């Protein structure tokens, strides 16, 4: 593959948090067994004035703050999410206007459950490699939905990250990528429905685990690498248990996934999950370090990436935008009643 990589990156996590225990208490469940069962202690909650558009804009601005790119040189913006504010009308145009990238660029919104953001990275890679654009901005962000009382309620959270993809001066080269896709209806939200449905245990073995392991193995076989070759690995994290289990199945250690494992403290940010994990790794990565990423989107598919951090990362002023760790620390707890208000769970006429 020709040279292409991540030129800059930025992330955004809303500062409100609700503890799993508080959700459990609201539903009269055992708080300890819920938190330990899912390995989720708390999750981020978007405020009333936060949505995928604001999270995407914040992520894009953070990415631009860390580099010298003229927004007018961004030839494409793709925003992956399953909670775009509009069913019809793109989020990407809002981002493009907000960062000053309009009007000569390509824009579209993507949806592929939790992997729409990594699909956007692949699209930008193709456009950069074919020289149709100089820079592409790929964003994955969500303010994910969960029906009150559903098991998803402990996980579904908010956050996102954006990556500027280009062929020069990249902080991490994307050495290769591949996908593994089947029609597997493990989780879905029908048109016009407020909350998603899921197939319970069917979301595990034949969905998440099958797609991630196959995709990851396919890429490592193709490029002749093994888990030991990587300093960091990031897997999609719908809860705190699955990524640890899938890492073990593939032969990665907990040490390798620790830096990118955010679900236990912010929940599942859906399209943002793998992207935020990667952003968290880039916050601390050193030149020469190698990163493996595999996202997962229900429905279902996975995208795997092999990255190598370049010397360029030392040139970047990473501190010009808040690190993922800093955004995780910057939090304010809310109770279930406030959560219900923020998430529009209350009904009145």
């Amino acid at each position, binding site marked *: 593959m020709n040279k292409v990589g991540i030129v800059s990156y930025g992330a955004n996590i809303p500062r409100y948090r609700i503890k799993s225990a508080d959700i459990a208490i609201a539903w009269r469940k*055992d708080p300890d*067994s819920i938190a330990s*069962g899912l390995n989720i202690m708390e999750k981020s909650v978007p405020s009333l004035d936060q949505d995928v558009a604001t999270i995407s804009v914040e992520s894009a601005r953070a990415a631009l703050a860390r580099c010298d790119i003229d927004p007018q040189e961004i030839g494409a913006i793709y925003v992956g999410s399953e909670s775009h504010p509009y069913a019809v009308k793109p989020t990407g145009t809002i981002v493009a206007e907000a960062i000053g990238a309009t009007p000569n660029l390509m824009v579209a919104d993507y949806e592929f459950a939790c992997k729409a953001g990594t699909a956007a990275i692949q699209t930008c890679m193709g456009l950069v490699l074919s020289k149709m654009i100089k820079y592409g901005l790929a964003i994955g962000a969500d303010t994910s939905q969960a029906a009150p009382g559903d098991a998803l309620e402990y996980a579904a959270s908010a956050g996102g990250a954006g990556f500027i993809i280009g062929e020069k001066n990249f902080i991490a080269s994307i050495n290769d990528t591949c996908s593994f896709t089947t029609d597997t209806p493990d989780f879905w939200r029908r048109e016009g429905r407020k909350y998603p449905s*899921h*197939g*319970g*245990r*069917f979301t595990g*073995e*034949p969905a998440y685990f099958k797609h991630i392991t196959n995709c990851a193995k396919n890429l490592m076989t193709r490029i002749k690498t093994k888990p030991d070759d990587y300093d960091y690995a990031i897997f999609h994290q719908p809860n705190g248990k699955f990524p640890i289990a899938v890492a073990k199945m593939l032969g990665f250690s907990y040490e390798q996934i620790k830096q990118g494992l955010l679900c236990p403290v912010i929940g599942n940010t859906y399209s943002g999950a793998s992207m935020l994990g990667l952003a968290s790794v880039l916050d601390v990565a050193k030149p020469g370090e190698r990163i493996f990423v595999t996202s997962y989107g229900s429905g279902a598919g996975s995208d795997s990436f092999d990255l190598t951090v370049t010397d360029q990362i030392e040139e970047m002023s990473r501190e010009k935008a808040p690190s993922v760790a800093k955004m995780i620390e910057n939090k304010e707890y809310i109770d279930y009643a406030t959560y219900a208000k923020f998430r529009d769970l209350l009904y009145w006429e």
Partner: protein
Amino acid sequence: MKLREVAVIGFGVTKFGELWDKSFRQLIAEAGAKAIFDAGISGKEINALYVGSMSAGRFIGQEHVGALVADCAGFSQMHIPAVRVESACASGGLAIRQGFMSVASGMSDIVVVGGVEKMTDVVGNEATNTLATASDQEWEAFFGATFPGLYAMIATRHMHEYGTTREQLAQVAVKNHANGALNPNAQFQREITLENVLNATMVSYPLSILDCSPVSDGAAAVILCAADKAKKYTDKPVKIIGSGQASDSLALHGRKDICTLEATVHAAKMAYKQAGIQPKDIDLAEVHDCFTIAEILAIEDLGFVKKGEGGKAIDKKITTLNGEIPINTSGGLKAKGHPVGATGVAQIAEIVAQLQGEAGKRQVKDAKIGLTHNIGGSGASCLIHILEAM
């Protein structure tokens, strides 16, 4: 009426578990084909087909299961009688009894008896609700009672009356997982510890999730044949020497004593009488351990131990694989899995394998007479069969 003797001449069991890539029809076709192959019969020799399935209508949206199974087994051009029977979780046991009666009466020489359930096409809540249709909708399910709740009430009462402990209940699961670890078709082929059970998520006190049998997919089939013709097909036929069936009030509150499943007591009496044997003559048994307390009730109600001493029997390890009377060598419903319609037929398959000396690592030495005990609901139906190596 003089009944003919009936023998099992072949059996087939699928793997039990969450079989995401296998459908209802694939499962029963696989079990049926294995059984027919095992018996070495040709399709033309089959006179009738019986299949037990609890709720294909709700689990997969398919009724008219008798004809469907005949069709997917490739029998549609033979136009044989195909009968589906239902008795909740005892549907498989009932299918065995119907097949047994068909051969014993002389109406058929060779019948195929199958049992099948595909439970994982629906989500967990829907499976729970479907299983709850086997309880009393008006007086139990309507008020929120599910089977774990009903069996938990039985367990709590048993603990109160007889001093049975949570540890004794848990040991049933530990034993059955140890047996399941030796069964290549079991859903859970791993051992668990007492602490695992006691510390597992509580479903309904005193039953934790590891006291409960799982939701499973799977199928089993056996070939029944008039005993005088059995040797033509196999060197090791196994006779069904007793068949018992009994019913009881659908709801738990209709029982005299919830610590005794009267349906078991009566079905056992019928089967023992027909076989001309006593409980002490049984070498091993597959009993309906949908919950750990159910196995304790079963060994008491079947007469293996005195009422109230089931828990202590577990402590004394008389029901382990090398014990005095091994119970659930297959892993039972707990570890082998519980695809409800298949369970009663799979129990017969396990006992036949044991009596033929073909049970591999879980083989019980010198097993001559075995018993199967299959319960519907919280004990409103019971099917018992006693088998003997010929």
